[in-house]
């Protein structure tokens, strides 16, 4: 089928890159936004615009809050389908385990737990015998926050980049997983087909024709950030390996896994099963104090990042306290486990082995929980470089073919170009449109989060229709005016979002930057303004006419540059 390695790699790069490139745009862009997901949450939920704080006292603040925790209705319905008979009244279900999680960027605290159910599963191998519940707490006052307020950053943009928010049968995750593999393949094949990689590192000729300058930008963004792109696509697969992408230990090797868990429970002294004997709960604050003392002793004093309890109210219950990883790359760790009824230490986790250290370092570097603002911004730029690399790939694909397609009457480049508009300007429009909707819809609107999601998909859908409607010039080897029009709308909409934030909350930039500094909101506003400026600049550039003659000349030269198809 292919005559040479370069040709076969060229095929993989072009076609696999094109098809999965539309998905990769979403991963890179929303991945870049995820770096500041908590900050976007603050922008979208003005009630939570206060300073981050450490984990509050369990005994005084958190304990009473867990009484208010209720099973999640969605999970309740999903569980009902998996068990024999109907579930008892959700109000009567008993909490069997709980957790609390916070980071150095969270003013609010995420809590949750698992409720025990008496029903037997339909499938005897299904050992997932509980219903989950989740809530967000204001740790300063100890009250539950309105669950209806969608955390646009951490509950919409963030999952968008790894699941496309398409959870049915985990299809979104699998599409993203395939896209990650194709990203890796695209990087390796890209290096193979472009032999002069060192020279391309320094080559960018924006004054040349669109094809040449796009190719330069494609190569430059691909090569400059090559380790970054490879690393993110690779760790994306590793992070979800054991649970989603390669769950061998939950399927083929499940017997070995279970055998090991029982051995481990015996070795670590952390009971795998409840004893069935009721027991009270000792002071958790005392356990936290002891954990902090032990961390200081190890010369790594720190705050609690994650706290969990298993077998609640049972003799075998235990409390696990993990240190927040805001001062290093690896995630929460240094777990210390206590007997819930007495508060004595059952187990202190030993230092990590080499393999685990590598794994925690790699996944930690992807999930970046550390406190280092400059590095976080590098992540954002890295993600945007990836998006530019893919977007210029689309431009190359279209520019190389559209003259030929115009002659043969093929609609190929027209369709690709319309999809490129949808996943470049259309996608940013959807994100900004969601923020605009967030500020326009009243805060107490029932199901506000659903309306925001509807706005997101509607804006994106409209952008797609607009791109298709305006696409006919591409079939005549000219540009789609939708690029310019959507850039203009994006610029206006971004400024609109900043203005609406000011109008609805009173938090304008002079206040959030100078008089009453709050960087989370100021950062989102400033980013929106930069987005608007870039969008207006792009729209102005796209207004300049391209002479047909120049394009034709360029194309005949490009034939010699890229011989692989």
């Amino acid at each position, binding site marked *: 089928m292919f005559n040479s390695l370069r040709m076969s790699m060229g095929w993989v790069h072009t076609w696999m890159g094109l098809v999965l490139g539309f998905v990769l745009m979403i991963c890179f862009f929303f991945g870049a936004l995820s770096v500041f997901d908590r900050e976007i949450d603050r922008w979208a939920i003005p009630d939570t615009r206060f300073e981050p704080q450490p984990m509050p006292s369990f005994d005084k603040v958190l304990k009473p809050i867990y009484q208010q925790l209720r099973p999640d209705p969605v999970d309740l319905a999903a569980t009902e389908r998996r068990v024999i008979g109907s579930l008892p009244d959700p109000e009567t279900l008993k909490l069997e385990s709980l957790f609390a999680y916070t980071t150095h960027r969270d003013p609010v605290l995420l809590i949750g737990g698992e409720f025990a159910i008496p029903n037997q599963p339909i499938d005897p191998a299904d050992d997932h015998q509980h219903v989950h519940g989740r809530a967000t707490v204001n740790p300063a006052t100890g009250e539950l926050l309105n669950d209806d307020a969608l955390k646009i950053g951490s509950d919409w943009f963030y999952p968008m980049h790894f699941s496309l928010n398409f959870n049915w049968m985990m299809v979104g995750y699998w599409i993203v997983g395939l896209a990650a593999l194709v990203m890796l393949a695209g990087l390796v*094949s890209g290096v193979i087909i472009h032999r002069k990689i060192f020279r391309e590192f320094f080559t960018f000729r924006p004054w040349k024709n669109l094809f040449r300058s796009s190719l330069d930008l494609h190569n430059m963004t691909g090569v400059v950030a090559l380790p970054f792109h490879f690393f993110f696509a690779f760790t994306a697969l590793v992070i979800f390996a054991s649970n989603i992408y390669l769950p061998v230990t939950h399927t083929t090797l499940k017997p070995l896994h279970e055998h090991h868990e029982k051995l481990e429970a015996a070795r670590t002294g952390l009971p795998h099963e409840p004893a069935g004997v009721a027991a009270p709960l000792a002071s958790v604050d005392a356990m936290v104090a002891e954990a902090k003392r032990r961390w200081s002793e190890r010369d790594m004093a720190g705050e609690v990042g994650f706290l969990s309890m298993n077998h609640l109210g049972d003799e075998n219950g235990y409390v696990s306290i993990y240190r927040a990883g805001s001062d290093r790359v690896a995630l929460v760790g240094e777990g210390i486990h206590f007997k819930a009824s007495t508060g004595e230490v059952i187990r202190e986790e030993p230092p990590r082995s080499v393999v685990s250290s590598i794994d925690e370092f790699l996944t930690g570097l992807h999930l970046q929980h550390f406190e280092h603002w400059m590095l976080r911004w590098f992540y954002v730029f890295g993600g945007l470089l990836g998006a530019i690399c893919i977007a210029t790939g689309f431009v190359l694909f279209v520019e190389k073919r559209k003259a030929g397609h115009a002659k043969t009457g093929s609609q190929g480049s027209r369709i690709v170009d319309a999809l490129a508009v949808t996943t470049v300007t259309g996608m940013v429009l959807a994100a900004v449109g969601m923020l605009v909707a967030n500020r326009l819809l009243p805060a107490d609107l029932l199901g506000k989060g659903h309306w925001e999601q509807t706005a997101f998909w509607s804006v994106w859908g409209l952008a797609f229709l607009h791109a298709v409607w305006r696409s006919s010039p591409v079939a005549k080897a000219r540009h789609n005016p939708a690029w310019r029009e959507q850039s203009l709308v994006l610029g206006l909409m971004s400024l609109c979002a900043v203005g609406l934030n000011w109008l609805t909350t009173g938090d304008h930039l002079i206040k959030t930057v100078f008089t009453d500094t709050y960087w989370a909101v100021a950062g989102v506003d400033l980013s929106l303004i930069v987005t608007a400026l870039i969008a207006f600049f792009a729209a102005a550039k796209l207004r300049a006419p391209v002479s047909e003659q120049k394009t034709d000349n360029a194309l005949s030269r490009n034939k010699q540059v890229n011989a692989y198809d």
Partner: protein
Amino acid sequence: MNSQAALQTTNRIFAAILGGYAFTWGFSVLGITSLVALGIDFHEAETGLSLIAFLVFLGLFLWTFAAKSMIRVWLVLAGGSAVMMLIGTFLQNSLLS
């Protein structure tokens, strides 16, 4: 693209994604059970394999498109997967008995 070429391309895409996945699966099963049999902790083995597995998958994926003979590709991917699964599950059974 004529229908012959389309068929060949489809064959390669299927082999690269599904065949490559099957091989990677077998590789992980054999890798984890072998390491556990050598006395390495189960979770260590699991983590170690998850770090290697996708690099193996990537290599197979690209090789499928670069390879001359598709018969050899399918033999290695499907055959290799089956053999590794067989040895891996055998090892698991002997570890548990």
